[in-house]
């Protein structure tokens, strides 16, 4: 603490505020330095050609990512590190690498020009760069249906993602919590239950991320899936969400009456009514959840919740209608 001895207690908080503001200013300065450096490195890369990134022993990504960590911009560092995997991702990698380089440049130039951006977009940029913010929107009390919950190992920590659907508001909210490996990150909300609770959204990112506030009563089990739409609805929602956050890879969607069908080396979710289809995202093809989904369908239509984006549809939970008339629809089956 820098506070001088003898300072009156009532000025301590404003001192602390000033100190926090100074720290935030210093950090923003470092990030700006990092963003400028990143911009320069991307420009150099493009001048020489992306083909260089495919050569063995190419170390630019790791080194650049480390520079971004030094610049206290973990969001930029993470994106840079992901670029490193693209040259090994099979045919068509130059196009994908250009896409991600372009979006990275979009992000660092957005940071550098954030003063000219409208408030929500500026908030999105701050979050994407890696600044933490706090949930500050209005609290929405609703009966939230727990759609999916899964843990993603992320370096030394584990990120738990919980998807909620507000029965009355119709909103979908994503709760993120973090925990050390081997320890549960925050308490688990059972998939397929309904929780009466308040959820407050974080700024930016289309308001998707939320924070769970006070809960009223215990979670209740339910078998009713959220209302769903068509494959076209899911893609249209993703397209709309890109207006608020052009860096989004996917947006949550519930598909009604879709049938998993094999297609080439992969799988599709095909609308039973209109025959329109979304490819199952490559990341989901190797997960056991895909076969659960197929088994559950038995070739018939299901309601499927998942993330829909430019890589395809990543199924996270499914509901099937009862197999006979006197049977209730099945409870949600987690596919993660």
């Amino acid at each position, binding site marked *: 603490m820098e506070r001088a001895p003898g300072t009156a207690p009532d000025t301590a908080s404003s001192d602390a505020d000033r100190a926090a503001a100074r720290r935030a200013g210093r950090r923003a300065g470092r990030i700006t330095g990092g963003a400028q450096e990143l*911009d320069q490195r*991307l*420009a*150099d*890369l*493009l*001048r*020489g*050609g*992306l*083909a260089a990134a495919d050569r063995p022993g190419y170390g630019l990504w790791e080194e650049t990512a480390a520079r971004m960590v030094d610049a206290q911009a973990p969001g930029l560092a993470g994106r840079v590190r992901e670029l490193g995997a693209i040259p090994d991702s099979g045919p068509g990698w*130059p*196009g994908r690498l*250009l*896409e991600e*380089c*372009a*979006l990275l*440049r*979009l992000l660092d*130039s957005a940071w550098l020009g954030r003063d000219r951006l409208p408030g929500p977009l500026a908030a999105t940029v701050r979050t994407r760069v890696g600044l933490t913010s706090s949930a500050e929107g209005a609290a929405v009390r609703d009966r939230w249906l727990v759609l999916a919950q899964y843990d993603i190992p992320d370096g030394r920590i584990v990120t738990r993602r919980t998807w909620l659907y507000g029965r009355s508001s119709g909103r979908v909210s994503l709760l993120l919590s973090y925990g050390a490996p081997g320890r549960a990150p925050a308490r688990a909300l059972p998939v397929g239950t309904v929780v009466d609770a308040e959820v407050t959204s974080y700024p930016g990112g289309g308001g998707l991320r939320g924070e769970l506030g006070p809960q009223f009563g215990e979670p209740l089990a339910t078998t009713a899936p959220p209302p769903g739409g*068509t*494959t*076209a609805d899911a*893609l249209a929602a*993703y*397209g*709309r969400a*890109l*207006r608020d956050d*052009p860096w989004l890879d996917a947006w949550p969607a519930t598909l009604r009456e879709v*049938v998993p*069908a*094999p*297609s*080439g080396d992969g799988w*599709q979710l*095909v*609308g039973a009514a209109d*025959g*329109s*289809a*979304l*490819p199952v995202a490559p990341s989901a093809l190797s997960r*056991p959840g895909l*076969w*659960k989904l*197929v*088994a*559950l369908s*038995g*070739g*018939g239509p299901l309601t499927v919740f998942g993330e829909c*984006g*430019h890589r395809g549809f990543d199924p996270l939970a499914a509901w*099937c209608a009862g*197999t006979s008339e006197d*049977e209730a629809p099945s*409870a949600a*089956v987690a596919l993660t």
Partner: protein
Amino acid sequence: MPTTVDATTNGVPVNASWEDLVTSALLGTDRRPLRAEDGAPVGPGELLDTAALHTVRRRAALRPATGAALPEPAPADPRPPLPAAARRRLAQLLADRSAPPSGGRRGAAPDLTELIPQWLASAGAHGYRAPAELLPALLDAARARTDLRPHVLAFAGPRGLWLAGLNPEWRFALRASSRGAQRPGIEDPEAVHGLWEEGLFAERVALLGAVREQDPGAARALLAGTWATERAEDRLMFLDSLRSGLSGADEAFLEEALADRSRNVRATAAELLSALPGSALARRMAARATTCVNPDRTGGAVSVAVEAPHECDAAMQRDGVVPVPPSGRGERSWWLGQLVEAAPLGVWRERFDDRTAQELVMLPVADGWAGELHAAWCRAAVRQRDPDWARALLGAPSTPLANGPGTASLAERSKLLATLPSSERALWVAGFIAAHGLSEAFQLLGVCSVPWEGPLGRAVVDALDIARDAGSYPWSFSGVMGLAERCLNPAEADRLAVLTTTPDEPEGASPGAGGYWSEAFQRLVSTLRLRAAMDAELAQDGAE
């Protein structure tokens, strides 16, 4: 989707297709620059900005594709769903299989994987339908463990088979499916004939077995219809299917098979015929055997006189007697053994003044033939499934191993035991364990029905207790311990709980053995409790 985009970086529009952007980016803007509308070279920054616009615009404009052909829906499965608790239990058993606890020693926790077969058998007996979302884990389990396959495939039913058809990793299920649901209903004679005429070998074996179960005569007729055209090794397998449901009605067919071109087919036909005491072959063998084995009444007491055959003639060979003995055996005793084995056991009673099997095995046998004769009687008792003879040949369970009337071989004894009713079997093995301990009991326990009946369970537990008091380590008995976990009646758990404490170490005990024993008994008790819970869950009515 637009292939070109106007971007106005630095006020100058860049009109380029995505392919042009990728080419310039890949080769480098120094080497392959794009030109803006005003002819100025497009720098790396402008290129990236234009690419970002392309990327976001393309992503925002994504449209669904036209769907591929839908898979055929899975056939309906009318079985009732599992009770909710049983469904959770199955998920837990399967999860434990794919993620076994780390470390070699099992400690006090039950080995869930070992309980999967029992759970499947029990669920199958209740007639439940497998939960769809657990089918992938069930098929994975069956893929890894062939012993699980029959139960898993029966439980997985038509949807499991449907699913297996979509994943090459589960192809084994399709190969095995002829045992399962896709077999044509055997009440449909045309479909049966179709499959019999055109099916793969495995399908035909399975079909024959299924038909035989329902209607032995129909199975025989099916086989007779194509018999002449089957390959020798196939004839052998098909003939083997007649073993179940064997009756006098099969005799004519089998008698004809005695003239088969293949020696193995002939031998199997002879074996089957000799299991029919009323068959002509059995009578022929009886006649031959009784010329060799006779009562000897000289000197007051009756004994058994043996005169082994001097030749193996063509008629004997036609009836399945193998003329050439394995190396190290005399041919006359080899022939004798085969004759006695194939002769109906009833013939000895007639021959020896109405003596019972019990009395017959006690008669002295002349010239050192006792071993040969009794061994042949053992094989005959197993083949003819004759409990009286089996009982006589097993003798009292407490008789020392080497002095038994019939055979010292544990494998032969297991076979004899299998001909006895299950409670008698359990009592005999219980007596055996009480007299001889556990070290020789493993094979005999394997033929006892599960759960073990009271006296048998008590004998096993008492013997384990004695072994503990003797101070040896529990893993000397891990085979029997494992069996006990799976086979003891779950109701014994409470009585066993007293054994889970760590006792004072007796003098001369192996160091630390007491602790390991208490751990082993804890595992036994917790496994039994788990089995009781599993049974209770499966017995509940209805799903959630």
